[in-house]
């Protein structure tokens, strides 16, 4: 099992969710985050003084999936989240040792 963690533009959340649902993914977790990558923020003026907005709002989507599905999932997210402009985000994948569904106690792929 793997955890796919994608950091995307907030307004792409819905598109990503739909893409994942299309793959049969039944659950995911979303966190509001801020960050920067190549997209560097911008400057604003407040009461006559300039300041840098370094961090931009993003959403982080975490989804635990069976290892078989990782490629599909990464692909689907990337496609749904892409606008072609900087700031589109990143996808990170790492290993998941164990998963437990609290309600039933199921573990492993069953629990996803």
């Amino acid at each position, binding site marked *: 099992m793997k955890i796919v963690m994608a950091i995307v533009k907030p307004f792409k959340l819905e598109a990503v969710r739909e893409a994942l649902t299309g793959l049969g993914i039944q659950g995911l977790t979303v966190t509001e985050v*801020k960050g920067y990558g190549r997209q560097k923020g911008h400057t604003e*003026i*407040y*009461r*006559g*003084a300039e*300041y840098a*907005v*370094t*961090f931009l709002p993003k959403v982080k989507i975490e989804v635990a999936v069976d290892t078989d599905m990782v490629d599909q999932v990464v692909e689907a997210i990337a496609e749904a989240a892409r606008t072609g402009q900087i700031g589109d985000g990143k996808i990170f994948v790492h290993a998941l040792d164990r998963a437990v569904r609290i309600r039933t106690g199921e573990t492993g792929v069953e629990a996803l």
Partner: protein
Amino acid sequence: MIYRTLKSAAGPLALGGLALAAMSHPVLAQEAAEAAPEFASASETAFIFNTLLFLMGGFLVMWMAAGFAMLEAGMVRTKNVSMQLLKNVALYSIAGIMYWVVGYSLMYVDVTGYIGSFAPYSWPAAGTANEGDYSVASDWFFQMVFVATAASIVSGTLAERIKLWPFLIFVVLLTGFIYPVAGSWKWGAGWLDAMGFQDFAGSTLVHSVGGWAALAGAILLGARNGKYTSDGKVSPIPGSNMALATLGTFILWLGWFGFNGASQLALGSMGPNADASDISRIFANTNLAAAGGVVAALVLTQLMYKKVDITFVLNGALAGLVSITAEPLTPGPFMAIVIGAIGGVIVVLTVPLLDKLKIDDVVGAIPVHLIAGIWGTLAVPLTNGDASFGVQIVGIVAYGVFAFVASFIVWTVLKAVMGLRVSAEDEMNGLDVAEVGVEAYPEFMPMHGR
């Protein structure tokens, strides 16, 4: 239909005897005594109107306390909101008490030219005759709400870093002594009044005095940590809630009709030049000046920064109001707009100037109240033939020197005795956690980093 037991036996029909007592011409008195139940006494009608003006003006200006509280709560960061609210509730209360303890007498009772007398000021007890053209308690109430305004200005400038108790002690002294003594010079018919200084509702007397006190405090207190970076740049600290700031501005705008309008001090006079007409002009001019300040700030920030900074627009409204406060009656509508618009321009240009001097004024109170207040006072001779630039300048300087020096001394003593400033750690964590113990929005996690 029966309605609550009447509190007062003196209904309108009790008038006869009074009218009688008030008359001097015997024959007329004779006739009047018979006719009295039918006609209203002119002086007594005026008494009611004048008193009503003070009460209405008073409650409108009282409402400005809420305006300052909301404006300031919106302009500080989330972590200092409870503290800012608390300070505003507390200062209004302290001002009200101190103005009874000694303030009113210092300002209005037996003023020698430079100072009145030291004593609590009480109005006649219920059931005692109340002479004059208005109820003295209504006058006290109306004057009292003004003093709180001066204190609110200080609270805004010094936000986010001053400790609660030294601030409150300063408020005690400002509202009990500094403001009343200064006030006596003009409104107490002291030396500046004798000289012909004109300040209708207090551009200088209320707003600049508050501004000077704030400036003295800001210098001694220093800027908020992080406001000015080590390489000399300004690092803006956005206010947490523009809805509150806007609400506060609207409240202040509304209250200003009482501030300026009821400073006419009489509503009941009759005749073609009636006070009612003057008050109406004041309402219209007050509104136009605020509108002028808004439009000026709107256009100027768009031109200068390509975006419209709402905080400048809100400041612009207030600067327009402060600017017209020294003379809201004599300008025609066009001049009222111009006077207010210049106030708006002043704000947009002087806020960054203060930042250059590293004077950290959280809400922009010094530009709005002190600088626009000076402008308003200087503008009086433009429309009011009774005023002269020379005397206006004397007044501005006199108030500036006194308010700044007196405040500076008080702040210095407070700093030496108990310290003015919270610790760097408390400042970082926010005054709400450090001194109030109650966060303003405890379920809401502020966002760090921009």
